[in-house]
């Protein structure tokens, strides 16, 4: 035993490796993340306080807070912010309620057919681009399936994603279709890990199913609900793929999200400085919310 250990430690490289293992094992991941986040962060901050000329030969000019002040008066930005918040609130809350409801149903009534759970999870695994295309096809006003169903039911036909009033709703429906499975999955996992004893005690006390849900299930699920909401909110705040393909931000900017607006400012209007300023705003908003939420829900403990 000691001999083999001695032989191994005789090798000085191995000893060095062993001594610095806690740093060496962290190093590759840290280096990748540092290079790919520190540089962009510094660039963003520098770009946001300068005026970058479209001519690459001209030097950057210091612009102070100008780019940030533009945020106050830029109506397109306000529209983007409003749309993003609207989308996040309605999409995430619908996904949560549907996901929780389905998880409760399947947990209670489906014992054997486990593959059904996988089937219900499929949408979240599919490429968002394929999902967006599919919904574009379904929403298509002339030959789309949805209008056919409306017609059969005797309801008025709609332009859906192309209608000023319904565009945001259409985007939310497609997102709910893709991401309810995520909530469903997390809730199902939470339900599977519930202890049995409190429920047995509650049943003896004659507590109704509703009381059991309210007093036992919900408190037990709280940590996982909090994490599920946080992850979905962080994702919803940066919605891009779906609107880029389904609506392109239209009609009349009704579905233009902040991510889409940043993309347009950076690549179509070729204004990286202002794009950086908006990006920093989005970043600040997301981090501020996440930190508050993590504290509030006591997720760090």
């Amino acid at each position, binding site marked *: 035993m000691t001999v083999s250990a001695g032989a191994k430690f005789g090798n000085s490289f191995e000893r060095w490796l*062993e001594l610095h293992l806690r740093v060496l094992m*962290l190093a590759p991941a840290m280096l990748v*993340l540092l290079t*790919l986040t520190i*540089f962009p962060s510094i660039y963003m901050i520098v770009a946001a306080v300068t005026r970058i000329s479209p001519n690459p030969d001209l030097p950057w000019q210091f612009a102070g807070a100008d780019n940030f002040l533009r945020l106050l008066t830029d109506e397109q930005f306000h529209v983007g912010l409003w749309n993003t918040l609207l989308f996040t609130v309605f999409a995430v809350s619908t996904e949560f309620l549907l996901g929780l409801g389905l998880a409760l149903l399947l947990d209670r009534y489906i014992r054997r057919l486990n593959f059904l759970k996988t089937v219900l999870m499929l949408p979240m*695994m599919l490429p968002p681009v394929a*999902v967006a295309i599919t919904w574009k096809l379904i929403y298509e006003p002339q*030959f789309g399936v949805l209008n056919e169903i409306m017609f059969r039911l005797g309801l008025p036909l709609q332009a859906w994603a192309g209608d000023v009033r319904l565009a945001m709703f259409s985007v939310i429906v497609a997102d709910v279709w893709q991401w309810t499975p995520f909530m469903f999955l997390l809730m199902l996992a939470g339900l599977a890990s519930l202890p049995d004893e409190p429920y047995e005690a509650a049943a003896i006390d004659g507590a109704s199913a509703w009381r059991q849900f309210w007093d036992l299930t919900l408190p037990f699920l709280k940590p996982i609900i909090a994490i599920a909401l946080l992850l979905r909110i962080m994702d919803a705040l*940066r919605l891009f793929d779906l609107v880029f393909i389904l609506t392109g931000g239209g009609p009349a900017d009704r579905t233009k999200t902040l991510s889409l607006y940043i993309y347009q400012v950076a690549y179509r209007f070729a204004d990286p400085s202002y794009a950086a300023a908006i*990006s920093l705003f989005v970043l600040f908003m997301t981090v501020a919310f996440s930190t508050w939420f993590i504290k509030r829900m006591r997720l760090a403990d």
Partner: protein
Amino acid sequence: MAHRRKSIEIQRVAAYATIAVALVVTLFPVYWIAANSFKYDIDIFSIPPQWIPANPTLKHYRAAFIERPFLIYALNSLIIAVSTTLVSVVFGSLAGYALARFQYPGRWRYQISFWILSTRMMPPIVTIIPLYIAFNHLGMLNTKPAVIIAYTAFNLPFATWMMKSYFQDLPVELEEAAMVDGDTRLGAFLHVALPLARPGLAATAIFCLIISWNEFLLALILTLTERSQTLPIGIAGRVTQYNTYWGEISAAGFTACIPIVIFAFVVQKHLVRGISFGAVKG
């Protein structure tokens, strides 16, 4: 009593009906894109819609994969997804193990963990502009390594956290026993902890694969040439200002879904455990 039993029966039927509706709503869009990929254009646009392709054809598959470079896109997607997954899982398990097992001075362990997670809070659109400029300077735009590097950065935080929670769940005694028997710390990691964490490795790998196979925004900005683009970009590219090539898009979109669907059923067990596990431990 009979009355009570009846109301339970009704509840049961209502529950099954709701689940059935959920299944139909979940599956229909996928079916619809599949059905349309096998229809002639005229049938795609038919009013009322054709629920089942009357004259099935492989025309759009031929158009996409033989006449247009969708085969190259698919190959690019595959290479990028597999490479990203390999790098993320290797780096992620190393860092995850370190954060799960080693002591660091002060609150460094907590701070490093939180910092790693916080890099994911940055919306991709924030990091992508500087990355675009950097890759442009390095002459790496339109190359697979550029996309792989960018994807790795986006997958690593997740991979690290998932592996960390898996390692934390392993009993530390097994590794200690191996070290008492003369194994080094690295040996204990390689020979004891890593094999035991196999389900965690599988779950993490599945995640990285799905995320990189599906990713859109980064690839959209980092690749502009046909030779370097991925499947999602290729698909989106068939929605042009003047025309939307529904048939080809459906064929390519459905093809992009197939590997994921097969994969999902093959790895069912790992997948469910993996997602829930990583998330519960957050």
